[in-house]
C-alpha cells in the first residue's frame, strides 16, 4: 500500500536534474543575482534562484548560458521579458502603467498631508460669548425642577 501511494505521488513529479555547471565565482554571483530578479513561472511569487521546480532550473541554466556568453544584465532581462513579458520580473520597472502604482500612493500621501496642514493652520473658531441663544437656555426663575434642586441643596 505504502509503495503504491509513494509510486502515485512520485509519478506526478518531474525527475529532478542537477543545474548546469557553476561558473567562476564573480560570474556565478551575477547568475544568482539575476536569478533573484526573475519570477519562476511554475511557482507562487518565488524567484527562479529560490525555486526547486524543473522550469526554474531550466531558466537558471539559460541565465548561466547567457552570462557565460558575455551578455549584459540588461540583455539577459530583455531575453526573459521578450518571452514572458514584464511578468517575468519580480521588480517591474516604474514606467507606463506601473508608474501609476508607484506614483498614486505618493500623490495620495502628499494630498492628504496638504489637507491636514491646511486644517491645522486654520484658526480655531472662538466659541461665541453669551448670546441670545444662551439667554434662551437660562431656565426661568420659577422652573419647578430648578426649585427642587435648590431645595435639595438647602437641606
Amino acid at each position, binding site marked *: 500500500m505504502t509503495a503504491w501511494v509513494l509510486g502515485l505521488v512520485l509519478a506526478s513529479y*518531474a*525527475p529532478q536534474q542537477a543545474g548546469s555547471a557553476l561558473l567562476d565565482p564573480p560570474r556565478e554571483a551575477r547568475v544568482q543575482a539575476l536569478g533573484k530578479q526573475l519570477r519562476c513561472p511554475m511557482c507562487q511569487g518565488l524567484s527562479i534562484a529560490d525555486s526547486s521546480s524543473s522550469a526554474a532550473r*531550466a531558466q537558471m541554466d539559460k541565465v548561466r548560458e547567457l552570462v557565460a556568453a558575455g551578455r549584459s544584465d540588461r540583455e539577459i532581462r530583455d531575453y526573459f521579458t521578450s518571452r514572458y513579458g514584464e511578468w517575468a520580473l519580480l521588480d517591474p520597472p516604474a514606467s507606463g502603467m506601473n508608474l501609476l502604482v508607484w506614483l498614486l500612493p505618493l500623490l495620495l500621501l502628499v494630498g492628504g498631508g496638504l489637507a491636514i496642514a491646511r486644517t491645522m493652520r486654520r484658526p480655531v473658531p472662538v466659541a461665541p460669548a453669551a448670546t441670545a441663544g444662551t439667554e434662551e437656555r437660562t431656565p426661568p426663575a420659577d422652573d419647578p425642577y430648578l426649585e427642587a434642586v435648590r431645595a435639595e441643596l438647602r437641606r
Partner: protein
Amino acid sequence: MTRRGIWIGLSLAAVTAVLLFVLAKGFGRDPHEVPFQLRGKPAPDFTLKRLDTGAPVKLSELKGKPIVLNFWASWCGPCKMEHPVVAMSARRFGQEFQFFGVVFEDTEENARVFAGAPDPSFPQLVDERSRMAVDYGVTGVPETYFIDAQGILRDKVAYPIDPRTMMEKLAALKQPAGPVSEVVR
C-alpha cells in the same frame, strides 16, 4: 457649492477614476497568466533529436508547412488526457501540418514508454535540459504552439487542448497572418 468644494469634488473624482482604472486592469486578468510575447514573431530556431531514431530535426529546414509543437511530459497527468487529441489530429491532418511532440523535463526512458507504445502517431523530440522550451517561453506542460508555413509563431494554448480548439487553431494557421485568438492561459 463654493469653488473650493468643486475642486475637492473634482480631485476626489479623478483619484477614484484612476483607482478604479488600476483595479479594473488588475482584476480583469488572471494574475497567474503568463503573457505570450512571441505571438507574430519568428519561431526561435532549434535542433533537437528524435526520441525514436536519434536523427536531428532542425526547425529552419521545416519551413513550407505549418507546424504544431506539443510540449509534454510523462509525469504530467493532463498531458496523458491531451495526448490522444494531438495523436488523432496528427493522423488526420498530418498531410497539411507537421506535428511534433517535445519532451519536457523527463527521462528518455519514461518518454518512450509514454509516446512509443502503442501509437507513435507523430515524432517526439528530446529537448536536452529544456533549453528550447525556455526559448519558446514555456511555463509548464502541456503547452501547444502553432507556427505558420513562414516560420512565424501564431498562437499558443497553455492548457490541455481539446479537439474543438485544435480544429480552430489549425484552421486559423492556414489563414494569412492577421488577428489571432487570444486564448492564452
